[in-house]
């Protein structure tokens, strides 16, 4: 074996497409039992957002390092799950209340879901509730994301 670490094949798909898509994304590290939820309507999708997160002042990095006490680089099992949001202006525009509502409901759903998964995890992202979270379609969409997470989390591995 000549590689310092084993080769890494990463499924990127088109998560860099933020032109016509907005996303909810979930970062997962089972090794450190941490989950981070975010949202973006940035031009470069969740891949572009990831670039911010791993930067020196990125929120993911700051939260991870303050909670774990180690550099983010040691999280060598990170998984990024990206969920495209409905292609409607409510979700794509600058006014972010719809995206933030789904983000909140997903975070809340994952807090409740951790009672029934292995390994359990800590949520290290911080999100605020918005009134749009009462919207039926918003709740439905968030529920689908949480259900997908629950269905795939235990068997997902890096």
């Amino acid at each position, binding site marked *: 074996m000549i590689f310092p670490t084993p080769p890494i094949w990463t499924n990127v798909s088109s998560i860099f497409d933020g032109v016509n898509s907005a996303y909810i994304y979930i970062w997962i590290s089972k090794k450190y039992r941490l989950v981070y939820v975010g949202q973006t309507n940035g031009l470069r999708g969740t891949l572009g957002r990831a670039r911010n997160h791993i930067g020196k002042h990125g929120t993911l990095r700051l939260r991870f390092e303050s909670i774990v006490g180690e550099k983010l680089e040691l999280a060598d099992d990170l998984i990024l799950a990206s969920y495209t949001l409905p292609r409607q202006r409510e979700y794509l525009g*600058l006014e972010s209340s719809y995206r933030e509502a789904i983000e909140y409901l997903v975070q*809340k759903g994952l*807090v409740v879901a951790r*009672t029934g998964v292995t390994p359990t995890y800590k949520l290290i992202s911080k*999100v605020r*509730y918005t*009134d749009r*979270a009462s919207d039926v379609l918003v709740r439905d969409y968030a529920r689908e994301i949480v259900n997908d997470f629950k269905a795939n989390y235990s068997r997902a591995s890096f």
Partner: protein
Amino acid sequence: MVGVIYYYFIKDEAISIYIDGAPIKPIDVLFTEEADTNGNLDENEWNGREVRWIDRPKEITLDAELNVKAQIEVTQLPHPPTFELDERGKQAAIRKQYRIEAGNYGYYVYRNKRLINVHGAESFGIIPQDQDLYALRGRILIDDSADDAFNIDVKKSTIMLSDDAYNTIDLLSDEYKRKSKRAWERAKQLKHEREGNDPNLVANEIVADFEPPDVLPGDVVTPVEEVEVSKREHEVSEEMQSKLRTAAVKKKSQEEGHDVTEDQVDQTDLVATLKGDTNPAATKIYRVNAVDDNSLWEPYYDAETGGCVRINKLHKFARQVYEENRENTDLQIMFELFLLQMAEAEIYVQKNFLSLDRTKIREVLGEYRRVSSDFLAAMCRRLENRLPPLTEKQ
């Protein structure tokens, strides 16, 4: 207070406690039996009179590392000032009946079925001091496996949450606080309406008999052009009514949980969709929960109602006006009058600018409205701390 501390023992274990020979009754500070009868809280429609569930009992993991589980449940108690309209002095009676006062709102933490803090509710630094939260009641049930996560000192009746437990309760509380506060504000608003102090009603009353000019000076319309103007007016009205019917079908389908057809939608459904939860007496200016494209406002027109405006009260800019400047009713009235004229102007331009295709005008104006709304939202987000009310921030 003894009835609160030992609520579960007296109720479930059938233990009797007497003080000076008098039996102590179990006191459920959440009044869950009433909540079970009345159902879940809809903070946009609550009438301020009933106990309702904000979050029904559910099990959560408070601390993943320590594997600490708890049951959490939250209710909204009545809005006492609402009852003052029924009968003088009734507000005080309701406050007493439901123990609604400073220090009693927040979380009641029961360890092994006994209230830890004998003085009442915990805020955990999460529930702020705010009169609009007086009706919020939460309960957290834990057993002694939570002693480490909660840093419980039973003798001193003190609780300090672990980081994970704090973050979990903080996350859930965000929704609870918001819903409770909105419900309380809704009850206040209903009370103001009954007292004749509602700014939206005032704005509607101001313009009740006002119609903008049919033709502005300089916009000369020949008799031939008048025919085209009339035709466009009819088209605008038909389009908007069709859009309203589609929205009413979607709303009713969501409410009933199954697909509904247009012929199952009646006039009441159409009016409810058009006006949202605005006072039914409003005739031109409606505060609604959502409009197309999440814009700040959108026009509505039909031959019967004339020009109206639907204001997206959950848009960031609208919230800045209605919530952050809640006491400034003059601002709210002027804001609504301004948007009504903006809406009327869109209809006017569609009808009267005959040199341009009407649907193109509609599209351009719609885009202009969307972009303006997004710019206003962006401004609110970036300049949040510099926007009025300025006197509080100085």
